[in-house]
C-alpha cells in the first residue's frame, strides 16, 4: 500500500457567530435558504464542512456571497478560528511523518505555519498587501519573517519572484498605488509564493478585474500550478474560473456543502437544486 497522497484533510469544521438556540436547526441551512436563525440571530457561517486535498491538486469552492466559502478558506488559513473540527495536514516534504492537526497548534506555531507553509491571495489587494510599503517590501515580508537577514539576498529573491509572476523587476521599489489591479494581484501571488508554500489559497482573485486582465492572471496561476505542481484551494463565485483551474469542486450554500465532485460532473450533471440553478445562471 502506497502512502496516502493527501496533504490536507479537513472534517467537521464549524463556525457560528452567536449563542445558538434549540430552534436554529429548524430555520437555518440550504433547505430554508437561510444562514441566520430568526429566533436567536445566530449566523451559521460554516456547518460541518470537510474535504480532502491531494498533493498538486486544485480544489474549487463555489457559491454565492455569504455561502460560507470565504469563511471556510479563512479557517484553513488559520485566520478564523474554527469552533470545532479538524484540519489534518501532512507535510509533503516529509511524507513519512505523521499528519498534524493544524487546529491543535498554539498561536505561535500556527503563525509560523501560516507564514511558512501557506500562501494566500485576496480579491482586494489591500487585504493581502500593506499599501504603505513598497512592492518589494511587501514581497519580502514572508522572507523576513522566516529570518532572511541579508538585504542583498532578499532583493535578489524578490526580483526572481517578480520575474516569475511577470512583473517588471525594475519596479521593485515602487509604491503599490502606482500598480494596476492585475499587477497588484501578481504582487500578491509573488508574496504568497515567496516561502515556497505547500498550499496556495486563492480568494476570488480575479473578481473585479477586466476580462483580459482576468485571463492573464488565470494563465499565470495555471502556469504556476503546472510548473510547481502547486496544491491550491480556489474560492470563486465564477464557475468559469473554477472550470479552468479546478478538477474537483465543492458547492456551498448557507454555510453548508451541498455538493462536491469532479468539476465536469458538477457542471454537466449537477445534483442539488442550488447547483442546478448556479449552472443554469452561468453566462
Amino acid at each position, binding site marked *: 500500500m502506497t502512502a496516502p*497522497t493527501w496533504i490536507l484533510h479537513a472534517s467537521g469544521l464549524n463556525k457560528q457567530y452567536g449563542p445558538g438556540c434549540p430552534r436554529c436547526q429548524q430555520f437555518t441551512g440550504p433547505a430554508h435558504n437561510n444562514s441566520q436563525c430568526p429566533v436567536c440571530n445566530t449566523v451559521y457561517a460554516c456547518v460541518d464542512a470537510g474535504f*480532502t486535498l*491531494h498533493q498538486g491538486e486544485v480544489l474549487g469552492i463555489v457559491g454565492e456571497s455569504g455561502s460560507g466559502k470565504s469563511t471556510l478558506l479563512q479557517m484553513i488559513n488559520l485566520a478564523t478560528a474554527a469552533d470545532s473540527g479538524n484540519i489534518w495536514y501532512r507535510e509533503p516534504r516529509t511524507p513519512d511523518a505523521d499528519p498534524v492537526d493544524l487546529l491543535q497548534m498554539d498561536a505561535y506555531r500556527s503563525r509560523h505555519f501560516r507564514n511558512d507553509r501557506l500562501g494566500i491571495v485576496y480579491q482586494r489587494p489591500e487585504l493581502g498587501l500593506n499599501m504603505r510599503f513598497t512592492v518589494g517590501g511587501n514581497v519580502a515580508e514572508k522572507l523576513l519573517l522566516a529570518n532572511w537577514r541579508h538585504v542583498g539576498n532578499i532583493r535578489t529573491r524578490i526580483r526572481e519572484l517578480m520575474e516569475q509572476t511577470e512583473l517588471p523587476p525594475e519596479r521593485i521599489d515602487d509604491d503599490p498605488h502606482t500598480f494596476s489591479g492585475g499587477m497588484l494581484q501578481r504582487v500578491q501571488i509573488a508574496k504568497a509564493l515567496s516561502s515556497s508554500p505547500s498550499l496556495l489559497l486563492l480568494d476570488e482573485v480575479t473578481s473585479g478585474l477586466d476580462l483580459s486582465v482576468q*485571463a492573464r492572471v488565470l*494563465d499565470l496561476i495555471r502556469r504556476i500550478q*503546472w510548473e510547481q505542481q502547486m496544491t491550491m484551494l480556489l474560492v470563486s463565485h465564477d464557475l468559469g474560473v473554477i472550470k*479552468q483551474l479546478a*478538477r*474537483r469542486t465543492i458547492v456551498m450554500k448557507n454555510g453548508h456543502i451541498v455538493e*462536491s*465532485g*469532479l468539476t*465536469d*460532473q458538477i457542471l*454537466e*450533471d449537477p*445534483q*442539488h*437544486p442550488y447547483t*442546478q*440553478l448556479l449552472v*443554469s445562471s452561468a453566462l
Partner: protein
Amino acid sequence: MTVPLLHVKNLHKSFVLHLIDGRTIDPIQNVSLTVDSNQHFLLWGRSGIGKTSILKCIYRSYLASSGEIWFNSDQFGSVDMVQADDSMVLKLRHREIGYCSQFLKVLPRVAALDVITEPLVRQGMLQAQAHDIGREWLTQLGIAQRLWHASPVTFSGGEQQRINLGRAFIASPRLLLLDEPTASLDASSKQIIVDMIQRAQQRGTAVLTVSHDLDTLAKLADGQLAL
C-alpha cells in the same frame, strides 16, 4: 475467462430537473455492454436516445443512477466507475481512460502544438520531447505547419475536430471514449479518423465510439450495440 476491459451492467440514468417542477427524465434505461481490450465497439442509434449520456456515465461526467460500470484498470484492478471516489476517477482519467467530446473546447490563448501535447506533458513528459511527438501528429493529421503556433479556436471545423481527436489519441489510453468522431467531417478527414482508430487499436487502445455514422465506422467495429 478473462475479465473484459469495460463491463457496463444494467445502467440507469435519470435526471431530476429541480428547476422545472422537479420532473425526472430517464435517458438511459437498463443498458449493458462489454468492451474487450483492443476492441472497437460502436454504439449507435438516433439522436437524443442517450448515447452520449452512456459515455459520460462511463467517464463519470454524469453520475449513474443505478447499475455498475466495471473498468479493469492496469494499476488498481477492477474499479466500479459508479462507486469509485473522485480521486480514483481522476487517476484513471490521467492514465487509462480518455474522452473526446464532439467539439473541441480549448482556451483561445493556447497554441495547437500545446493543445495536442497537453496530455503528454500532464503525464510528466518533458515539453521538448512532447513537442517532437506533437509535430509528428499534427503532420499526420494534415494540419498545415503555419497553424501549429496559432490557437485552434481560429481553425476550421474539420481542423478543430482533428486536433480534438489527436489530443485524445496521443496519450494512448487503454480505453478511449469517442463522441461522434466523424460528425461534420469531409470524406478525407473521415479517413484520417478511421486510420487513427485502427492505429490506436494496434497500440492496445480499446475504443468505444458513439455515432450515427454507420457508413464510415460500422466496418471497423468489433462489436456494436444499437439503441
